[in-house]
């Protein structure tokens, strides 16, 4: 679908969201500048700016005047909640659709998932 080929600013914003979720960016930590992002990804600084603006609008980042962008307190919990909300629809539905096409049964799926979750909690 169209969403597979997102504009670059969306991809960069998503990258920063993933960094916060994965703990690579701490809350209240300063984010690299738009210029550093632009140089790293070889993109126009305006594009990086747009990604930051997107995150500010979503309450993930906030701006300290004259200093730069910082991760909002509580941003991780907020992102986790948002991603949980879309997890089943956006991530799992395509997998289930594929399973149906190739004939994987519901029982097999459930068995696989329980085994995986069991392994993870057993470690």
């Amino acid at each position, binding site marked *: 679908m*169209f969403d*597979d*080929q997102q504009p670059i*600013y969306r991809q960069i914003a998503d990258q920063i969201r993933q960094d916060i979720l994965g703990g690579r960016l701490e809350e209240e930590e300063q984010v690299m500048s738009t210029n550093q992002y632009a*140089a790293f990804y*070889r993109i*126009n*600084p*305006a594009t990086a700016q747009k990604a930051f603006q997107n995150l500010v609008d979503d309450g993930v980042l906030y701006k300290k005047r004259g200093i730069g962008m910082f991760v909002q307190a509580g941003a991780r919990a907020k992102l986790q909640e948002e991603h949980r909300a879309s997890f089943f629809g956006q991530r799992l539905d395509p997998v289930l659709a594929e399973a149906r096409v190739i004939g994987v049964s519901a029982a097999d799926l459930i068995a696989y998932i329980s085994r995986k979750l069991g392994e993870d909690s057993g470690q």
Partner: protein
Amino acid sequence: MNIEIRNLHQRFGDAVALNDLSLSIEGAKIIGLLGRNGSGKSTLLNIIAGFRKPTSGEVLIDGEPVFENGRITERLALIREVGDTVEDSEKVEEALRYAAYLRPNWNGERARYLLDRFEVSLKSKISSLSRGRRSALGIALGLAAQADLTILDETYLGLDAPSRYLFYDELLQDYMNQPRTFILSSHLIEEIARFLEDIVIIDHGTLMFHGNTEQFVSQGAAVTGNAADVDRFVQGKKVIGELQLGRTKSAMVYGEINSGFLEQANTDGLDVESLGVQDLFVYLTQPKGE
């Protein structure tokens, strides 16, 4: 810098290079000028920089006519392909010396740094440089001029991929350190699209598109699916290209791709994919024959 191009016409004998082209560019941006060979790109850039007087029409920069206006032309740098320098029999350092004399904002240190990065020796004769190294000299002359408007017209010829990426990095660095207007003309669209804020497309001497790069990309989509379904879906839309493989068909559509468009395609069981800057440009300007 504010560039106002009004009703430009340029004829060369019977041939029309520019046909009533009007365009206005504002702000410190990196702008890509795209067009096929012979579309009038270089002619337009020559006129913007005061290298040529148009048959009719005018170019105003910050409200003043450009042609023979030293106050304005001193703020412009147009580098054409491998760059205009002194006589080819002279050395690279001579070219820098002349630029230092003639450019009010010349940054000799930057020029020498760039030439060093591109591995061009100051002592080399210009005529002995390879095409890529000459391009590198052109890039150094263009960036070190630190002009308010820097135009690079296909200043990449002969440069290998690593050198081109070095060029892009240095250009971005220059732009970020000292925001000013850059106009880039290149056939390597895929490589430069990511750092173009705006895009200008000219075709057969007329303006075809001017606007934000993302806005441009969002106007082109490939709709793929069962041929009959695709045909029904694209009715009344502007189709700029078609591909068919067996019963599967892709139609390239140009226009507003909104949520209604996407929903409709979804219900019809059609795939919608973005075309990207280069493919969209190719479909829009491909030869149509007579």
